[in-house]
C-alpha cells in the first residue's frame, strides 16, 4: 500500500495529489506538463519543496507535519528517469552494482533477470535505447527498492523495441514483487502492464481506478485525450500477407492500414491507438510517401498543451453525427512555419507501424 498526499509548487500550478495506490503496477497518465515526473521525483525524495505525507507499507518517507523527511538515499525507492539516466563513465556492470546497498546476489539476479550478461563490459554510449532501459531497470532492482518509479521507459523506443521491453517490465513486477509507478502516454502500454491508472491534469488527480474500467469507460475518450492519444474502434477488413499489412475500417468509415495481424479474423472488432505525435501533418496533398495512411482533414481547433501544440482535425470523409477528431501533436514552431490556422485543409500521414492494435 502506497499512501501519497503531497503538495508541491510547480511553475504554472501546484501539484496536489492525494491517493492510495495498490502494490501492483499503477500507470500515471495525463498531458505533458501535468506533473507526472514531478510526482515521481517527490516520491523519490528529489524535490525538497514537496510537503505532505508519503508512506510505503506504513514506513513513512515524508511527513512534514511531524518533521519527517527521509533523504533519497534512505528511502529505498528506485527511480528510472526518462532516457534511463545511466552513469556514462561506468560500464554496464559498474552501473548495475552502483547501489551502495546492492548485495552481490541481488546484482547477479538483476543481471540474469534482464539478460545483461553479454553487455557487462560495455559503456552506456554504445548501447541501444532498449538495452539502456534494461540496464537502468537492473540498476534499480539491484538496490533492493521497496517501490519502483519508471518515467516513460518506452517512450524513446520505436515500436518493435517497445514490444521487446514490455516482457521485461512485466517480469520485473512478477519476479521481484516490487510495486511500480509507471508514467506513460500510451494507452496500449497502460492496458498491457498496469492494474490501475492515475490520471493527472494540471497537477491534480482527474481520475483513478482499475485500468480496464477507466480506459474502457465512455470517459475513456477524455482519458485518452489526456494522454494525447488517438483511440479508434473499428473492424478488421482483410489481411495483405504480401504487403505486410492488415486493413481496418474505423467506425467513422475511414480505412487504415495497420501492421499485419493475421491472428485476428476479418469482421473482428478492434481498438486502435495512435500517438498524437506520430501523426505527420502537411498543408498540401502528399505524394511519394512511404506512410500507408493519408487522411484529408480540416483543422478544428489549435491549442497549446504544455510545450507543444495540439491540433484537433476532422477527417473530410468522416461520417456519423459527431466523428472523433484526430489529435495531432506538433511543435509550436511547426505551427508558425506552416502558418496553420483553424479551418485550414491539411493532410495527415500515419505510418502503419505507428498504429497499435489493443
Amino acid at each position: 500500500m502506497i499512501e501519497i498526499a503531497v503538495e508541491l509548487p510547480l511553475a504554472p500550478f501546484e501539484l496536489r495529489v492525494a491517493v492510495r495506490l495498490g502494490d501492483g503496477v499503477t500507470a500515471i497518465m495525463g498531458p505533458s506538463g501535468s506533473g507526472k515526473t514531478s510526482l515521481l521525483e517527490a516520491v523519490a525524495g528529489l524535490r525538497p519543496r514537496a510537503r505532505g505525507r508519503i508512506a510505503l507499507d506504513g514506513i513513512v518517507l515524508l511527513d512534514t507535519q511531524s518533521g519527517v523527511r527521509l533523504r533519497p538515499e534512505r528511502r529505498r525507492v528506485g527511480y528510472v528517469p526518462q532516457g534511463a539516466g545511466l552513469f556514462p563513465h561506468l560500464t554496464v556492470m559498474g552501473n548495475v552494482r552502483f547501489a551502495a546497498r546492492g548485495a552481490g546476489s541481488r546484482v547477479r539476479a538483476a543481471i540474469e533477470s534482464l539478460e545483461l550478461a553479454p553487455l557487462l563490459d560495455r559503456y552506456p554510449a554504445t548501447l541501444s535505447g532498449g538495452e539502456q532501459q534494461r540496464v537502468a531497470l537492473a540498476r534499480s532492482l539491484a538496490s533492493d527498492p521497496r517501490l519502483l518509479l519508471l518515467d516513460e521507459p518506452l517512450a524513446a523506443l520505436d515500436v518493435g523495441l517497445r514490444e521487446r521491453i514490455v516482457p521485461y517490465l512485466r517480469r520485473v513486477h512478477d519476479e521481484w514483487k516490487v510495486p511500480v509507478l509507471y508514467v506513460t502516454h500510451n494507452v496500449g502500454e497502460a492496458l498491457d502492464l498496469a492494474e490501475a491508472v492515475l490520471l493527472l491534469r494540471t497537477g491534480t488527480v482527474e481520475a483513478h481506478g482499475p485500468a480496464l474500467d477507466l480506459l474502457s469507460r465512455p470517459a475513456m475518450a477524455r482519458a485518452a485525450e489526456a494522454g494525447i492519444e488517438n483511440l479508434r474502434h473499428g473492424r478488421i477488413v482483410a489481411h495483405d500477407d504480401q504487403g505486410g499489412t492488415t486493413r481496418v475500417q474505423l467506425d467513422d468509415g475511414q480505412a487504415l492500414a495497420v501492421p499485419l495481424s493475421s491472428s485476428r479474423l476479418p469482421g473482428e472488432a478492434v481498438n486502435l491507438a495512435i500517438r498524437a505525435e506520430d501523426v505527420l501533418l502537411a498543408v498540401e496533398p502528399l505524394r511519394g510517401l512511404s506512410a500507408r495512411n493519408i487522411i484529408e482533414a480540416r483543422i478544428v481547433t489549435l491549442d497549446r498543451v504544455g510545450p507543444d501544440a495540439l491540433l484537433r482535425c476532422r477527417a473530410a470523409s468522416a461520417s456519423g453525427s459527431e466523428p472523433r477528431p484526430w489529435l495531432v501533436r506538433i511543435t509550436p514552431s511547426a505551427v508558425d512555419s506552416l502558418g496553420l490556422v483553424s479551418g485550414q485543409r491539411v493532410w495527415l500521414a500515419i505510418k502503419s507501424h505507428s498504429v497499435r492494435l489493443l
Partner: protein
Amino acid sequence: MLTAADLAVVAFTLRIAALGTVLIIGPGIAVALALARYRGPGKSILETLLSLPLVLPPTAVGMLLLSVLARRGLLGRWLDAAGIQVVFTWKAVLLATMVMAFPLLVRSARTAFEEVDPRLDGLARTLGCGPTAAFFRVTLPLAWRGIVGGTVLAFARALGEFGATVMIAGNIPGRTQTLALAIFQASQVGRDDRATTLAGVTVLIAFMTLWTAEWLTRRRNRRVAT
C-alpha cells in the same frame, strides 16, 4: 649548458608551481562546484570577481597583494605580529602563482561541472549514496576532463608567472628567482645565451605538461566513448 645555478632555478620553479597547483586544487574544485550549482543573486558578480586576475595586468594584482601584505597592510599587520615574513620570500612567489592560477582552474572546472547532467546526482542518491559519495562517484569523475585541463592550465600559468611575483617577491637570485624572472634578468644584463637556454627549458617543461594532460584526458575519453 645548464649550470648548477640554472638547475636550482628550474627546480625552484617546478617546486613552487607544483605546490601552488596542489594547494589550489581543493579550494578550486569547491568554488567551481559552488558556482556551477548556485543559482542566486550575486552569482555573476562573484564570477566576475573571480575571473578578474585573468584580465588585470599581473603587476596590478601584485600591487594589490603587496598593499594587503605590507607590514601595515590588512593581513601584513597580523603576519608581522605572528613573526611571519611573506613579502620578498619564496612564500610570496607561491602566493602570487596561486592567485594568478586559481581563476584558470576554477573556470574550466566550473564549465566541466555545468556539463554534468544534474539528474545523475539525484539518481545516485536514490541508489543509496549520500551527497558526498554521489559527488565522488558520479559528479567528480564525469567532470574529470575539465578538472585535469584546468589543473594543467593552472600549473602552466604558475610556471610562467612574472608580473605579480616580481611585485611581491622581487627578483632575488637563489631566493625568489623563478625561470621567468631569471630569463628577464639574464637578458637585462646582456647574458642572452643564458636567457635563451632558460627559455628553451621553459618550452620543454610546458610541452611536457600539455602533452601529459592531453594523454591523460584522451585515455579517459576513449574509455567513455567506446
